[in-house]
């Protein structure tokens, strides 16, 4: 019973995250904020979308 409760609780949290993620995606950006970029020089976390390595790859692909 305890583990079922844990699974349900986990599922509910994931569902909340998915709903909020989709709502956030749907919310339009305010005027003038369409092309905001962080002044991040990049660390070794290449999974982060702000890492400059992604922009270099994109530029090479074009």
């Amino acid at each position, binding site marked *: 019973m305890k583990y079922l409760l844990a699974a349900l609780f986990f599922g509910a949290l994931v569902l*909340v995250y998915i709903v909020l*993620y989709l709502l956030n995606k749907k919310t339009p*950006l305010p005027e003038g904020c369409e092309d*905001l970029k*962080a002044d991040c020089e990049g660390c070794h976390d290449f999974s982060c979308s702000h890492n400059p390595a992604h922009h270099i790859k994109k530029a090479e692909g074009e």
Partner: protein
Amino acid sequence: MSELVTLLVTSVLINNVILNQFLGMCPFMGVSKKKSSALGMGVAVVFVIVVAALVTYALYYLVLVPIGLEFMELITFILVIASLVQLTEMFIKKYSPSLYKSLGVYLPLITTNCVVLNVCLVNITNAYDFSHMLVYSVGTPLGFALVLYIFSTIRERLELSNVPAAFKGNGIALICAAIMSMAFSGLAGIV
């Protein structure tokens, strides 16, 4: 009362989350090139940590403990922080475009900032009561923001300095961070 003041001073200066515990190094190195970016990131971190700490603390003691799911704290806190960042970003986008302009770009970065998770977990593992939790959850991000801002001012000056080629960029920045860490450890005597 003196205990709370000690906790505040300790969390801001002595047990500083960056210089003493070496957490949050990614934004520390990545977003410290300009004073304005450092300030924006600092404010966003303070806001998210305080809200995340309040929500996770309430969720732990009002939901997880009563139904005996304390072992779920880590996964719960991670999902709560991620959801909270989405919610915060959505509200700022909708109701405060000017704030979004200055903070919005840093909000997704905070999801992966381990300082947030650390604060939420420490509040539970140290069994803080509400007042101690609040002071610790305000003090830690303030210390983060303070060090990030000081470091950004140093890096701005370093840009204009004549640094040997081998040390340029992250090399000299890390040396400065090490000196800052030693300087802050000297503050241990005040408490």
